């Protein structure tokens, strides 16, 4: 009976931990999905996440309000997206190159702003504990997923975004500017990713620490591509990555497991599984035709 309780509690812990750790990943992947689906390759998710995390933590600390923290995170990320869109859609620069540059830009900019605001290039000060810390991520998740699904699958706008990614001339033929749709899709995606950043620094942690996204932007991109640019599959695969992150943390805190399998190997599992999946299951889904 006691063994049953033990395994039950492990299972519940793992389930809860998976849900918790998947939150930023799911939202980042959903954000990236809109950009990729509209035909704009999005490697700059890491930048949107980090600027969101830093802004949320700084604004929450300075204003004492989580609400302002979340909103400012989304807006800061949106601002970065405008720079990205201007360079990619207006000045026709390569999206992957600009995405890589944007990641570098944000990684360099945050410590400089941190130095001015808090006299520290490392972490931001710890935010106070709020009673409603859990409510914000839950509301964000429900709203962002619901709205994203509705926009992508049930609206003309969503269809036009998909056409911008598949056949831009078809959009032009009906008098819709495909660049406008791409601009909107990238901006919306960045907005959602900024919220994911806020969850990272105010819910999963109590301050911003350097490079706290830990490659989630890249993993989210991998989830999108691995899911064959399908929204529902993208969410499922993000949960899968979240599960292994949770498993790794649970395993590391369990002495018996961590003595058997080193933490680095548990860390590798989701990436190895993705590689094995790529090896054994040939991708049948095509990338959006206009994706570049």
């Amino acid at each position, binding site marked *: 009976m006691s063994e049953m309780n033990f395994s039950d509690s492990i299972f519940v812990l793992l389930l809860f931990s998976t849900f918790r750790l998947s939150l930023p990943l799911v939202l980042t992947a959903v954000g990236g999905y809109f950009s990729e689906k509209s035909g704009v390759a999005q490697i700059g998710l890491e930048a949107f996440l980090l600027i969101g995390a830093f802004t949320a933590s700084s604004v929450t600390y300075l204003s004492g309000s989580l609400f302002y923290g979340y909103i400012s995170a989304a807006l800061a990320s949106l601002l970065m997206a405008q720079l990205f869109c201007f360079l990619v859609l207006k000045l026709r620069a*390569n999206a992957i190159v600009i995405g890589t540059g944007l990641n570098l830009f944000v990684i360099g900019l945050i410590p*400089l702003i941190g130095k001015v605001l808090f006299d520290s290039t490392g972490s931001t000060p710890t935010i106070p504990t709020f009673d409603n810390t859990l409510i914000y991520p839950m509301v964000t998740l429900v709203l962002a997923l619901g709205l994203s699904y509705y926009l992508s699958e049930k609206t003309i706008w969503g269809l036009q975004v998909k056409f911008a990614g598949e056949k831009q001339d078809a959009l032009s033929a009906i008098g819709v500017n495909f660049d406008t749709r791409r601009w909107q899709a990238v901006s919306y995606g960045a907005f959602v990713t900024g919220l994911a950043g806020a969850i990272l620094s105010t819910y999963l942690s109590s301050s911003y620490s350097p490079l706290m996204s830990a490659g989630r932007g890249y993993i989210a*991109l991998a989830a999108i591509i691995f899911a064959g640019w399908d929204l529902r599959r993208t969410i499922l695969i993000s949960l899968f990555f979240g599960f292994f992150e949770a498993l790794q943390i649970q395993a590391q805190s369990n002495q018996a497991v961590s003595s058997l399998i080193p933490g680095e190997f548990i860390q590798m599992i989701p990436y190895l599984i*993705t590689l094995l999946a790529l090896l054994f299951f040939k*991708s049948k889904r095509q990338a959006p035709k206009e994706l570049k």
Partner: protein
Amino acid sequence: MKRENLAPWFGFLFGLFLACSLALFFKESPVHVLKIVTTSFLNSKYDFGLTLFYTTCLIFAGLSFAIPMKAGLFHIGSEGQLTISATIAAIIGVSFNANTFTGLAAIFIITILTGMLSALIIALLKFYRKAHEVVVAIMLNFVFAALSTWVTVNHFQNTASQNPETGLILDAYQIFKNDPIKNYFEQSPVSSFFVLAIIFCILLRWLESKTLFFQVIKSYGANPAANKRFGFSELKILTSVMLMAGFFSAFIGLTEVLGNSFQYKIGFSPSYGFLGIAVALLARQNFIGLIGSSFLIALLHKGASDLDLETQFLTRDFSRVLQALIIFSVAASYYVFTYRKRKESN
């Protein structure tokens, strides 16, 4: 010289101007910042040598990105390949006890093979399973980083240090300590690998202009379908460019382990793999141009690292902002420089 060829250099200057102007927001004088980032490499022979060391690694990183790019592949796996290669080089250097020649030959051959094989995975998954090269490279970067950390910390940790790093390679293999270039630059990190990097650039430029194979690679990059119709093997092209990319990534590991620190330190790379993108972009994937663009990025990297001491608010992180703004302006400069042409063709 074609007007478009001036675009990256115009972009470079504009990016530099933008970055220095940004210093105003941090209450620093742009002229002072510009002076530090562009002239600090001239402070001493050691500083100049350090800049040439960065140049060496950036040339190899640039080559590792530029060659697959010619075939239309976006290779961001260099970071993982250089990590695993440096680890292997240090492990052999620490544990394989032989004479200098045999030991160095083993280090060179096994490290290069490691780099090449780790890059080959990307090509094979791309060809046989239609896997996107960016996804595979991202996954491999994580796997190699974790693997390298595990090997270093659990099996080859330097017991005399708290930092995560391997022990020093055997004395017999530290021949680059007495390297004439290193001696000239007051024992700075630069070594003869710098000369090797330049030789590789010249050799590749020659191969590119003289051999059919490089023309096939370029035509595959421009039009894979046409290439297939001409009967050129896609598998051969993909594997060749990725093997070459892995080869040059491995040389970053060798430059670090045999030419600089004589050990593997976790996190030794300031994202060379990603900076290689900026270098290749600035040079428009021209192998000779890579030497100049690597030097420019290296001197800015070196200069920005001195900002900690020379300014109140700007830190070495400014280096990344600088590099990013240069990437932005170089990437966007083609639009400005081809504007008239596009207008006429429209």
